[in-house]
Structures are given as C-alpha cells and as structure tokens.
C-alpha cells in the first residue's frame, strides 16, 4: 500500500485530527532524524524550512503519474554536500548553510526506470531571498525547456547507484489534454449549468417583468429582493437551525410581505401622485442602496452559505449533477410556468396586462387597479425570494450584493425576451444563462458576461422589440 493510500484511508476514517500530510508521516519513517538546528553544513532533513541561517534544497521524487519513488538516494553537491534517501512519499530535503550553487543528483538508472527526464538538477540558494532561500527540485518535469531564477534541472548523463525497487509506471495518463479535448468534456456540463442558471435567472426575471409589465417600472431593487430571500433562508437554516424547506417557505413569505409593504408605503402613494416611472426608478435605486447596506449592516460583508454541506453529485449522461440542483430546476420551471399560466389564462393575469397598457381604462373597466398592482408586487417579491433561496443553494452562497450583481443579467434577460412578456423573460434568461456559461469555452472567463450582453445587443438589432415583443403600428 502506498503512502498516498494510507493517507487517503486515514482521512476517511478520521483517525488523525489534523495536519495529516507528509510531514507527520515522514517523522515516523525518516531514516535519520535530526532537529533543524543551526546547521552549518548541508544536512539531510525530513523537512526543511529556510530561516536566517539556512536555506533549503528539497523536493519530491515521483514519476510522471505522481507515484512517489521511495528509497532513492539523492546526492547534494556544490557549496556543501550531503546525501539523503527519499521517504515513502518521495519527499526529500537538504538544509544548507551557505549560499551558492547546489546540484542534486540521483542514479541515472532510476531516472530511466521511472521515465524521468533528468537525473540531476542544479539550483542556486540564497538564504536571504524569498525566491532563492528554498529551492524545490522536481525531476518529473516535462522537458528541459524552462529555466528561470528558481531551481531548474538539466539533464546529464552521470551514473549513479540504482535505486531499490518500486514498480514502474511510466506512462503519463493524466497529461493535460489540449483545450480542444477540454471543450468536448465541458460542453454538455456547461450547457447544463447554463440552463440551470438560466432557469434561476428566469425566476427572478419573470418577477421583475411582472412589475414592469404592470406598472412600467424597471425595478433596480429587484436584486435586493432576491438577496433578501437568500439571506432569510440563511437566517432560517444557519441561525435558527431550521430545516431548509420551512426556512425557504418563511423566506418566501417574508419576501412577499416586503413586496406588499413597499407597495403600500412607497409605490402606491407615488402612483397616486402620478409620479413618472423614471422618477420611480430613481426611488428603486435609492431603495436598492438602502437595502444593500441594511443587509451589510445586519449580515456583514461576507458570503453566507444557506447550506453547509455540498450534496453528493452523480452522473446523468455526460453531465454531473446533484439532486438539490435538479429539484431547484424543477421548482423554477413550475413557478415560471405557473406565472405564465396566471398571466395568460386567468382573469387577474389579463388584468395585469390591461393595467400596464392603460391604468385609467383598466379602472374604467372595473378592475381594481391598486389591488392588481399589490398582488403583482407580492408575487414578484415572493418569486424573487424563492429565486434567492434556490440561487443561494445552487450558487453555494449569498451575500449582501449578490442580487445587485445579477441585476444586469436580469435586465438583459427581460429585454432580450421582450419587455413585459412572461415567456420572453424565461427564454431570454435561458439564452443569457447558456451563453454566459458556454462562452467561457471560447473566450476568457472574465469576459463571459460581455458575450451574454453582446448577444443581447445583437438580438435587439435584429428584433428591436425583443424576441417575443410585438411591434406597434404607427399612426
């Protein structure tokens, strides 16, 4: 059994409390145990840490497949010299006293046997400098190409004593494939995660679109509603120690409640005063600011995890996933479909669209405009809270500004689909989610949102009213 396996098993059994790595094991297995005292001459030590008085030449000897090569004798020569033997993990270390050049050599045959490219390496140690106080020598590097200030190895043909047996497994199975191979491996997974993210985004956007569709208001504080949902779920699970489901339900209820309250004390009076949507939009900016920092006030600036554990993932076809993700996606779909049905099939849903078209006429048709808008705010904020919970679980954390950072994507999704259309928000979200997630296959990761936004612009150039928007006639 190799040392790695031992470590592995012990970890699983939880026998060792902490610091379980090579160091502890080496202590037991080291041939010569010398405390790292004021070494003047080079010395073989189990582990070496550079200090004011000593530098280190150390390394790990392993073959291309990361199998440690134990029991190989290594010779240090140069300003000082010493000899050591690699331990079960392949670790070896020399503590050296003098600055200068050192060469580490091993038996050529060992190198051959394990498919190492070189058997010697020369490094320069300088006790005082961070980049040269410790030199790590690795013989399993790919080719003798690189050479820099640090320890670089050069192949040489010196002979040495043969090392005692360790099986040879020379083929490098885990060599990093090219980018091309990666794309193949990543394609389905990223498509999948894009879809999932799109669904989450859809859930938020539909709520936002509902408010836009009914009152014409682009709510910049919708992101904070999402954050609120996530944070409330965090309070439930992590502070009150409730199970996730009741915590989520409570979060949604609180979300809906905030929607109701803010409609009563902010939006309804503004509408009564006939304040324009632009002005209301500024109010949402103010609200978003206030809420964000209120969150920071109560929850601090760090990311909060709603659940601590990471669920076990499993493989479905080419895709790795886990059950919470699938359940979240299911909930999102149900919620979005529900809202779409609500909008297109129910009386109240139609009323929301009527109110958005012409509130005065809606009132004249016997629709209680205020009540419709109230319901819309409640649904919208409750959906935001739901999405906050799902998102917090899916993205593994929520912080005071998570919603704000997603706001732009929500806007993009809503616009892409066509402002004020329910299924548009979903389709837009899916497109944004998939493009954002998949684009990192071809462009640098930090630009992936740029590609999603670029898609938005391109689509709008072709269809200025969004994908599902309908063009109005002139005249």
């Amino acid at each position, binding site marked *: 059994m190799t040392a790695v396996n031992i470590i592995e098993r012990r970890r699983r059994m939880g026998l060792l409390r902490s610091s379980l790595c090579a160091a502890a094991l080496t202590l037991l297995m080291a041939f010569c145990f010398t405390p790292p005292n004021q070494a003047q001459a080079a010395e073989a030590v189990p582990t070496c840490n550079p200090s004011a008085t000593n530098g280190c030449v150390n390394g790990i000897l392993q073959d291309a497949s990361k199998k440690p090569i134990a029991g190989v004798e290594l010779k240090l020569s140069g300003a000082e010299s010493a000899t050591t033997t690699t331990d079960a993990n392949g670790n070896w270390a020399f503590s050296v006293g003098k600055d200068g050049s050192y060469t580490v050599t091993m038996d050529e045959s060992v190198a051959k046997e394990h498919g190492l490219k070189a058997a010697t390496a020369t490094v320069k140690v300088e006790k005082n400098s961070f980049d040269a106080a410790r030199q790590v020598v690795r013989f399993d590097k790919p080719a003798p190409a690189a050479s820099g200030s640090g320890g670089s190895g050069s192949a040489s043909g010196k002979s040495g004593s043969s090392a005692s047996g360790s099986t040879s497994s020379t083929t490098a199975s885990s060599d990093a494939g090219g980018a091309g191979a990666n794309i193949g491996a990543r394609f389905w997974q990223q498509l999948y995660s894009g879809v999932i993210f799109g669904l989450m985004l859809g859930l938020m956007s539909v709520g936002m679109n509902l408010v836009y569709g009914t009152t014409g208001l682009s709510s910049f504080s919708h992101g904070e509603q999402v954050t609120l949902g996530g944070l409330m779920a965090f309070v439930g699970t992590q502070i009150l120690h409730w199970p996730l489901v009741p915590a989520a339900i409570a979060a949604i209820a609180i979300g809906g409640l905030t929607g109701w309250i803010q409609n009563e004390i902010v939006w309804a009076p503004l509408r009564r005063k006939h304040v324009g949507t632009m002005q209301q939009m500024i109010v949402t900016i103010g609200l978003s600011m206030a809420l964000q920092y209120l969150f920071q006030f109560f929850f601090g600036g760090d990311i909060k995890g709603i659940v601590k554990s990471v669920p076990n993932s499993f493989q479905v076809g080419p895709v790795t996933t886990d059950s919470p993700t699938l359940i979240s996606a299911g909930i999102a779909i149900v919620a979005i479909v529900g809202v779409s049905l609500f909008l297109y099939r129910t*009386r109240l849903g*139609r*009323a929301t*669209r*009527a109110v*958005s*078209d*012409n509130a*005065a*006429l*809606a*009132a*004249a*048709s*016997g*629709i*209680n*405009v205020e009540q419709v808008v109230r319901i819309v705010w409640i649904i919208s904020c409750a959906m935001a809270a739901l999405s906050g919970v799902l998102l917090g679980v899916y993205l593994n954390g929520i912080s005071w500004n998570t919603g704000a950072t997603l706001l732009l994507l929500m806007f993009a999704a809503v616009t892409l689909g066509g402002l*004020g259309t329910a299924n548009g928000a979903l389709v837009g979200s899916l497109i944004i989610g998939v493009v954002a997630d998949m684009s990192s296959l071809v462009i640098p990761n930090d630009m992936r949102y740029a590609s999603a936004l670029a898609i938005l612009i391109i689509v709008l150039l072709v269809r200025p009213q969004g994908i599902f928007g*309908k063009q*109005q*006639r002139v005249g």
Partner: protein
Amino acid sequence: MTATASAPAASATDTRPRSEIHVGEPEGEPLLDAVDLVAGYIPGVNILNGASLTLHEGEIVGIIGPNGAGKSTLLKSLFGLVHIHSGHLILKGEDITNLRADKLVSLGVGFVPQTENVFPSLTIAENMHMGAYQAPKKFNERFDYVCSIFPRLGERKDQLAGSLSGGERQMVAMARALMMNPSVLLLDEPSAGLSPMLQDETFIRVRQVNKAGVSVIIVEQNARRCLQICDRGYVLDQGRNAYSGRGRDLLEDPKVISLYLGNLEQEVEAEGQ
C-alpha cells in the same frame, strides 16, 4: 326659443333655479345628479367651474360644446377619473363624489373614454374580457351581443387592439363598455372615426340599449346626429352649463346653431339643390 336658459352665472355655484339649469327635466328623483362640479387636472386650474347635470332613469342625455369646453372632463369627473374639488355627485341616492372608478363599475356605470380607449397590447377578445371583468360568467353571451353590433370584432378577435384602424378601435372601445351591461353608460364621442354607416348604427344601438333600460350620457361633436336621439341636451362652454333643453329644441335653436352646431349640412344641401 323658450327652452333655452340664460347665460351662465359667474360664480362656481349656479344660482339659477333648477328648472332653468336642467330645462325639460322630467319629474322625480334623478338617477344621477351632478351639482356644481368644480374639477381640474392641475391644482389651481379648474376646468369645470360649476357644471351641473342630471340624468333620469331611461333618458339619453347629450352634451355638446366647443372643443376644450370640458365635456370630457365632466364625464371623467362623473366617473371618478378627475378629482372633484367641490360640488357633489349622487347616483341612485348615494353620494359617489370622487368614488374610485372600479367601484362605480360595480355600481353599474360604464364609460367609454374619448382617447386611449382600448388596451393596445391586448387582443380584441382580451379587451372584451376586460369589459366583462366584473362578470366573467356572462362573457360569452355579451360577446355574442357585441359581435352582432360590430361583426368585425368577432372576425378579428385575436388581433391586437394596437394594430387596429382608428374606427376599429372605436368599435372595440364601445363594445368593451357594452360588455358589462351597465345601467348607466357614459359615452365620450363614440362615433368619432366611425364610417357614416357605423355612426348611424352606433346611435341606433344607443337608442336600443337605452330602450332596454340603460340610461345614457353621451358627449358628441357629431351634434346633430346626437341631438336627434337625445331626450335632453346640455351645451357646455368653458366648464359651465350654457344651454340646456330637449334635444329637438336645441337642434333648432338659432343661437345654438350659430355658436355650436354650424350649418354645414344645410349649406351642402343648398348646394346640392
């Protein structure tokens, strides 16, 4: 003409006796009684300066007047869409001053605005659904009824109202108000933009509806046609009642003709001779 009232009073409260303000008014308690309404859009600027109007059960009352007289404002204030600063409004004995529009709808008042009178991004059918919002069960029956008046609406029921022609919109607007089978109907220029045939049709329908028991207030610039079907008419000028009388009487009143009705028809007829 005997039936016409004197010039409007200066103050917001019309001091003339009731019989002069509402010439030709039938006996009994009015269904809708608007007294000395003062209303406006912007604080400080009143558009209505003491306008009064009564509507009795089973009547058709017409309002005419120059552009900007405040006719639409009067209708809107009756319907709670414009804030009434003073004066009061009584429907079936109940004070409905500044009552919310949707409440009025449930009291059986229907309204067709002059402009922006359809939901452009809803289909025709959905517009009709909105009309029947408070009585969704009766939708099919009412929809068949309005389609009999405006067959085009039935044919095109899935077209967005926003893409309709001007006249078609007007049909939608009228039909929407008829959907809820109101007991009082407020119409603001229902015939504008309709073809002559449909204009006539509309007026006839208004009479039919009225015969079926709906009391109607109708604002019209197509004044002749309108006054032909009205039991009584009011002439509104600068937010005040200028004249009132039975429809026929107003039609023939030379002052009303010269100030408000014009005589294009006669002229054309004269030319045609």
